[in-house]
């Protein structure tokens, strides 16, 4: 036994982590400042693998940061700016207190400011990294751009957010990179593919926000501060990739209609179907009625090459009038349209979104004004095998394959039924184990009963035996399942746990799918019955 005594918690994971308070003390920052720094620098707590070891034997709930992260923060120039700002505020308060207006003015002029450029570069060393993390930035900017210009946060921030968001939308239009749109109850989801990276963002519906009181706007503002910087640089780079000038000259009001000239050198995708998708609305002329949400619709239509206009009194940027005979589609969201013009389709806005998601112009009949709309499906769901697929999706898939939807419907239904049957089969298989056991028991019982009866009834009767057809397949299956069961019995405890967990998850999935299917079936039958009734009523 030689050497020094090894002290506990002085090596290994205990030295790699630091608690939040210690980190704060090390950086000599107040908690809000520390938080702001963490937000800007993208430092987040880590969950250590062995929490008790890191926590020096205690099990108290603490947040841990990597010590390396905190050391990295020590050299951040922004930390100094934070301190300067603190002093600036103190001085300013003093000047106001003494009514030294001149001093206050001078101090205000020399207000310490900081830039986040280097942080953006540091957090996203490559452009693709930045694109990957753009989702939250875009969603936040779109949210802030809808905030009222009073209260809550600085007007400049809101204006900047609006500008950046609109610039990004313009890029998406110019590059035709929008892929999916989804009208959810929360807002409108968009997904664009920029340089091979899917970027998803959500915009709220254009209503005034009911500003909640339990939300810390300072935190959101700090995030927005960083996100605007990031989005600015990303926009710059994106515009330059299209050979466009940045910043574009955009009027605050008519943002969408100022469309930058498309870059000729934009690398075209070779995939023809993608090309086709991009030119979905090419040559179509849309007119938006007053009641439809103008901005998202105009954006989506333009993304796919369509031309769009609206009422002149609604907003500037209207290029043609309602009476224009070349209009092919008029988007309407009212139960009835009086004075219909011949030569154009009157459609509900969902048609545009559904068509974009389906990658083809859907038949218009389902989307006429006042018609009960078909369900709007999420384009983000890709069903795996065994998942429940709503029948509308099946129809859509068939349409995409190029089959005629009209003939398809019945077949589809049949298919559905088959599928349902399949599902049922699966269930049966699951339950088979128990069932087979039960069956055996029942058989045995019967045999016993028979025997008992034969014992009782002394006059022995010989009844003609029935030839039992042995289903070889079934037998084999039974045998296999039994073997499996026996093998499962021999599993180790840990593996058994894991196995059971996996199987539980699978079963739950199947159960949920079955539940949805059953619900749908019930709904459909109810509908059919109602239809029949109405028919009868009509006849009568």
């Amino acid at each position, binding site marked *: 036994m030689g050497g020094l005594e090894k002290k506990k918690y002085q090596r290994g994971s205990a030295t790699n982590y630091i608690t939040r308070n210690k980190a704060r003390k090390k950086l000599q920052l107040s908690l809000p400042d520390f938080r702001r720094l963490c937000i800007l620098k993208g430092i987040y707590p880590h969950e250590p693998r062995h929490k008790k070891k890191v926590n020096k034997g205690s099990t108290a709930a603490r947040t841990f940061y990597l010590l390396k992260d905190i050391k990295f923060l020590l050299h951040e120039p922004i930390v100094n700016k934070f301190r300067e700002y603190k002093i600036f505020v103190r001085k300013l308060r003093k000047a106001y207190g003494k009514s030294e207006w001149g001093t206050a003015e001078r101090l205000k002029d020399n207000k310490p400011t900081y830039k986040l450029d280097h942080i*953006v570069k540091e957090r996203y060393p490559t452009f693709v990294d930045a694109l990957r993390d753009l989702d939250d930035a875009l969603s936040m900017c779109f949210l802030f751009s809808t905030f009222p210009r009073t209260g809550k946060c600085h007007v400049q921030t809101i204006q900047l957010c609006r500008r950046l968001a609109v610039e990004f939308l313009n890029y998406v239009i110019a590059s035709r990179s929008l892929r999916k749109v989804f009208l959810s109850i929360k807002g409108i989801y968009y997904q664009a593919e920029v340089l091979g990276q899917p970027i998803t963002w959500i915009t709220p519906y254009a209503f005034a926000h009911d500003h909640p009181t339990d939300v810390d706007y300072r935190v959101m503002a700090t995030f927005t501060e960083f996100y605007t910087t990031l989005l600015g640089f990303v926009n710059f780079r994106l515009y330059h990739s299209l050979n466009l000038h940045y910043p574009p000259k955009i009027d605050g009001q008519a943002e969408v209609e100022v469309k930058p000239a498309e870059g000729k050198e934009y690398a075209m995708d070779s995939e023809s179907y993608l090309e086709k998708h991009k030119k979905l609305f090419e040559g179509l002329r849309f007119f938006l009625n007053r009641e*439809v949400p103008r901005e998202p619709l105009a954006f989506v239509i333009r993304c796919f090459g369509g031309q769009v206009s609206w009422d002149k009194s609604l907003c500037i940027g209207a290029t043609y009038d309602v009476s224009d005979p070349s209009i092919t589609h008029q988007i309407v969201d009212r139960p009835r349209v009086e004075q219909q013009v011949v030569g154009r389709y009157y459609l509900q806005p969902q048609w545009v979104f559904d068509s974009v998601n389906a990658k083809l112009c859907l038949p218009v009949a389902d989307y006429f004004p006042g018609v009960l709309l078909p*369900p*709007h499906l999420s384009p983000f769901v890709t069903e795996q095998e065994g998942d429940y697929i709503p029948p509308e999706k099946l129809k859509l898939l068939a349409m995409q394959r190029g089959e005629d939807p009209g003939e398809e419907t019945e077949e589809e239904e049949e298919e559905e039924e088959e599928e349902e049957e399949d599902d049922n089969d699966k269930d049966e298989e699951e339950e088979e184990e128990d069932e087979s056991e039960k069956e055996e028991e029942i058989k*045995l019982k019967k045999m016993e009963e028979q025997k008992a009866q034969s014992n009782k009834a002394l006059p022995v009767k010989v009844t003609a035996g029935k030839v039992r057809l042995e289903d070889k397949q079934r037998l084999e299956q039974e045998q296999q399942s039994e073997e499996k069961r026996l093998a499962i019995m021999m599993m180790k405890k840990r593996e058994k746990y894991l196995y059971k967990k996996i199987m539980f998850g699978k079963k739950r999935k199947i159960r949920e799918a079955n539940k949805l299917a059953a619900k749908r079936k019930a709904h459909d039958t109810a509908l059919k019955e109602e239809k029949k009734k109405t028919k009868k009523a009509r006849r009568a």
Partner: protein
Amino acid sequence: MEQPLELESDDDLTDSEESVYSGLEDSGSDSTNSSAAEEEEEEEDEGEQEEPSNGAAPKVKGAPRKSKALGADPPLKDSEGLSVPDEYEEDSSDEEDIRNTVGNIPMEWYQDFPHIGYDLEGKRIYKPIRNKDELDKFLEKMENPDYWRTVQDKMTGADIKLTDEQVDLVHRLQKGQFGDVHFNPYEPAIDFFTHEVMIHPVTNRPADKRSFIPSLIEKEKVSKLVHAIKMGWIKPRKPKEDTPTYYDLWAHEDPNSILGRHKMHVPAPKMKLPGHEESYNPPPEYLLSEEEKLAWEQQEPAERRLNFVPQQYRCLRAVPGYPRFIHERFERCLDLYLCPRQRKMRVNVDPEDLIPKLPKPRDLQPFPTTQALVYRGHSSLVRCLSVSPSGQWLASGSDDGTVRFWEVCTARCMKTLPVGGVVKSIAWNPNPTICLVAVCVEQSVLLVNPCLGDKLLYGATDQVLESYVPPEEERVQPVQWVTATSEEHSRGIRLTVQHSKALKQVTWHGKGDYFATVVADNSNMQVLIHQTSKRWSQNPFRKSKGLVQCVLFHPIRPYFFVATQRYVRVYNLLKQELTKKLMANCKWVSSMAIHPAGTDGGAGTVPKVMCGVHPVMDVPFPPPGDNVICGSYDSKLAWFDLDLSTRPYQLLRHHRKALRSVAFHKHYPLFASGSDDGTVIVCHGMVYNDLLQNPLLVPVKVLKGHTLTMDLGVLDVVFHPTQPWVFSSGADGTVRLYT
């Protein structure tokens, strides 16, 4: 209310007067102080007619006293304008009114006294006598023309009639006018410091020279500034640009510049993409039914699978704004900077891979697979079973107080032996030359000759038993050996070994002479070993080591296995010592069985030295008794390999309920376990003679058939001695044979 108000206003009046003159009349001497006080005293003496304001009025030296008493009023004083009043006269609040020395106190305090205070000499000042009642007051009010101008002096309690001047004064003050009638507030202003420049200087001093020549210091300062401007050191203040400038940040993407930190970076997971249920117009199956909605509302917000209720709107126009939009964004922000992150490896395992690859049961045949026969007859649960060494007969003991003997092949009950008590345990003598069954009934062991099979055989058994010669000297025995009466003899009972307590188990030694019994007791007399031929019993243990569950003899060697609740102890009977102690790793051992080796049960074919390394290559089959299985009430089956360790080689948790019995097959590598869940699980348990190879345990069949009664399923399991058949007795009163 009116009166005090008026009085106060009077006071104010005097104050204002004083302030008016205070600036100008400030040349008086302080020496007048004392005389003024004296004067006042005199005034007091003069009568109560004097106004209170008089005390505060500026005093004029040498002014006629009478005139004052008649109502010294401001105009009067005004006329004597330049006379000097003593401004310190009323400096102290104590001297405000020296007629009454009580000071500035609420006069209500004197309400109940006849006096109202004290004068300077300490004499009481009595209240004026007032004996007017309400009627008098009213009459006075009606009759007295001066009633309206009569006020009461609070300090003295006397009534004062205001003079006309005083009434005027009050009226003026009420109108907000100056108290002095002659005071003109709008007098023309006198310009003391005239704005007109005077033509002559104030002083006669000639102007300095420095007023003619330019200042050098200023010149220097200016030139410095000029120089600084020229050099560009001083610039006009530029308006700050707050619009951020952007440039190509990633112009020089250098893969080497990526910090090492980025390798440790755990990117935040993206937000979950919305599914069909989030649509504003989802397919109808995604909408929640009423119950689901209710369940959703009752769930904790953190537990909900969806953080919203799916809704359907007929058209886009009807969709409202989402009220929690800002919340969700904010929560995402919180997640991004507050949520601890950890890289987690998702187990991406095919569940099929987790199932161990075992030899197929088909390849491990023979083993019992189907139920062949049911032995019916017992009316209560069948606790114990035993098969004759030949395999032709089966004995079963039941709670209905009978022992039944069955022919195995036909399921025919050959014999029923009522024993008059619950049969706890039954054991057929393993010696094929002896036809004897030991039956545990309550406190005694019955040795029964079932008289089945070969007549020669059971006749010989009787002869052997009868040939017993009692020893000369009677030895003290823990039990009593009683020969059966003739009536009992006719039923088959030959001997009765009577214990003092209820019995639990009986088991034979392999050679069929000795048998051991377990008593349900906690003393050292729990286990007894009996010798049939000598009718002699002995107690092998001096001390009790816990509640003994069951005991077993080693098939060939002089070892004795004793299972207590948690341990199995192995004793060497020859050396009389503890050889091994096996930890069962379970809570309560219920049963135990010893691996009988693959050879025929022939005793002593394989010699083995316990402590030495036994010759591996010479032994065709593994030595018997090296493997023990223990069933326990916590539904575990422990397989011990005695050579390996004292801990179980494997714990099998096949059953769902408590195990009641376990059994090894004599020849085939099979063992079975019966449990309260009504199943018998037959396992293949191959033991290799190669020490390096561990036993192979494979469950091969789950046998069902017994119905659960009183939460009990299978109570005993026994293998057929030669065939791969297994018998099981159940709580439903049947015995079943699986082949």
